[in-house]
């Protein structure tokens, strides 16, 4: 996150904390969001992301901490006065009003003149590519159209920050993929700061400039999608963002950044440690290897990668671009999933075939085993 003081922040949270009884839903969360960016909060259900969003919208009040919008504290401001608007999980379009009525609702509350309301509604409908939808009833719209109207209803008010509470959750897969791209484009054309909460990592990765991974009320890591994917800082992030093969084990030896690991099942790997973690010999660790970073070796031309295994294909999981082989390592009976190369190179592999696989030490990330932080 840029620490440059010239950057203006649309939204800033300082040590925001919220508890319900004994349960701390949001635990000292601090972050800053620069103007005009798409910021996602990614986490499993129950991690506190909805509570955090509702505090930003003003429906809940933090026990401690400070929320600033454009540099001004909004803690004393009720939801209807905050310069933020929210797209609700089930959109919450008013079924008793037409599309125009829905979009004009907020403008009327600001005493905008009738003429101006008409032009602004027409304008925003054009911008979300539904110029003729104005007279329709809400139940006449398709899922994707409702989505766009819900966003238009907020954006017509030109909020400083737009909050989105998993609005794509109710859509079917195809439409969801399409809406991801559309949302990103909408955000770019309007230039409004979006805060998007989701449990779907693909939504967060595709759309966001910055993603915060949240777990048990805390931010585990904030960074660009690439940083989260390639350089996770905690084992939770490594396990939650993207697919991974995971082992538990302990450290056998350390040589600089290279670490020798012995897994519980008895395999030996060479891995890389995250600088922050400062591991020592004998520490319990978790090891993560992404399926796509595992090479399927050509028997005539073996690579010199430090982690080499021989295994048997026990399953071919075909899923287009996300196809994987499930491979059993015979010495330990452990299983490892390996991405099928898209070049079609190993497409002929079948169940029961024996292959050699290998991966680089850099692709094998080690984290200190955190107690109780990860139970899956």
């Amino acid at each position, binding site marked *: 996150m840029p620490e440059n003081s010239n950057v203006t922040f649309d939204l800033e949270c300082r040590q925001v904390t919220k508890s319900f009884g004994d349960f701390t839903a949001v635990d000292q969360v601090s972050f800053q969001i620069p103007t005009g960016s798409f910021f996602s909060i990614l986490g499993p259900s129950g991690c506190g992301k909805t509570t955090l969003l509702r505090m930003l*919208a*003003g*429906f809940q009040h933090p026990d401690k901490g400070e929320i600033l919008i454009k540099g001004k504290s909004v803690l004393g401001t*009720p*939801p*209807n*006065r905050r310069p*933020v*608007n*929210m797209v*609700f*999980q*089930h959109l*919450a*379009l*008013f*079924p*008793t*009003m037409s599309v125009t009525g829905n979009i004009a*609702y*907020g403008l009327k*509350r*600001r005493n905008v003149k009738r003429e101006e309301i008409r032009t602004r509604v027409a304008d925003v409908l054009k911008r979300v590519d539904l110029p003729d939808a104005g007279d329709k009833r809400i139940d006449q719209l398709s899922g994707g159209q409702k989505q766009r109207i819900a966003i238009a*209803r*907020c954006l017509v*008010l030109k909020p400083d920050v737009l909050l989105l509470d998993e609005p794509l959750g109710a859509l079917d897969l195809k439409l969801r993929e399409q809406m991801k791209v559309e949302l990103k484009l909408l955000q770019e054309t309007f230039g409004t700061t979006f805060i998007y909460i989701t449990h779907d990592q693909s939504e967060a990765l595709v759309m966001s400039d910055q993603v915060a991974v949240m777990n048990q009320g805390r931010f585990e890591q904030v960074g660009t999608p690439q940083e989260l994917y390639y350089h996770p800082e905690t084992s939770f992030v490594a396990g939650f963002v993207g697919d991974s093969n995971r082992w538990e084990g302990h450290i056998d030896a350390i040589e600089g950044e290279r670490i020798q690991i012995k897994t519980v099942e008895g395999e030996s790997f060479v891995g890389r440690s995250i600088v922050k973690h400062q591991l020592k010999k004998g520490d319990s660790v978790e090891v993560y290897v992404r399926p796509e970073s595992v090479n399927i070796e050509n028997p005539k031309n073996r690579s010199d990668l430090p982690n080499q295994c021989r295994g048997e294909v026990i399953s071919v999981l075909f899923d287009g671009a996300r196809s994987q082989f499930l491979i059993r390592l015979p010495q330990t009976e452990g299983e490892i999933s390996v991405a099928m190369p898209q070049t079609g190179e190993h497409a002929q592999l079948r169940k029961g075939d024996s292959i050699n696989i290998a991966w680089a030490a850099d692709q094998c990330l080690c984290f200190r085993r955190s107690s109780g932080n990860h139970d899956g």
Partner: protein
Amino acid sequence: MDKSSYTRFSLWILLLPFVLWLLLLILLPHVDMVSISLRERVSARNYTFSFKNYTEFFIEPLYWRTFVRTAWMSVLATLITLLIAFPVSYYIAKMMRGRLKALLFILCLIPFWVSELVRTYGWMILLRETGLLSTFLQWIGLSDQPVEMLYNDVAIMIGLVYTSMLFMVVPLVTTLDSLDDSLIEAGYDLGGSNWNVLTEIIIPHAMPGIVSGCIVVFMLSLGNYLTPILLGGKDSLWFTEQIFTQFITRFNWEQGSAFGILLLILSSLIVWAGLKLSRQSFTNVMS
């Protein structure tokens, strides 16, 4: 018997009690009432066809004034019931959760386990000259003699509103319950004040419940006999009392039937006008 005719047969068997009830207790008496109301007694057992019983209603001021008064008081009772029941229902449906919600709902229901007669006597005990309220006023020194609070329009109104409350609360709680909280939150989030959210979101959503509650309460008030007579006394001037007088006291069944039919037609017209005004359809409201 094949399957489809068997299902049709069982459907008829199931419908039979209802059809019989409709036919024998509702339709037949009304047809008979219409025919009785359209005849005039010339001499003993000698009747002619005539509209006299109907014209009588419009010529004699006491009759139609009583009707207008009854209709007006019923509309007023309906509005007051709505005004009291709406916040109560909103509180039960939206502010309460779980067991407390069920408890409050049952508390609204409990008075209706007692018969209307007993409930009305309850009000009489409170309001009569030697009643609780009168005694209390004398005890704290606000009055130096017994106060009669029965036998006036306010007492009738109290009784009607009290009797009707449940029939307003139930449809209101049901419709308000179905209002998604996020719609209310969205109303605030987009800049609405409490008043905006109430008038633009909550009331439009609750409209079917409001209208169905109002129809039921209005019909119950209009057709109520016990409460106006007991709390309003002899001079309560309630239209059902007129019907009773014609049938029982004056033994003028022709006139009584005409009043009964007129009450049905006029109240239906008022309900129809109410539906038109609130732009609701009858099927929508009653479902």
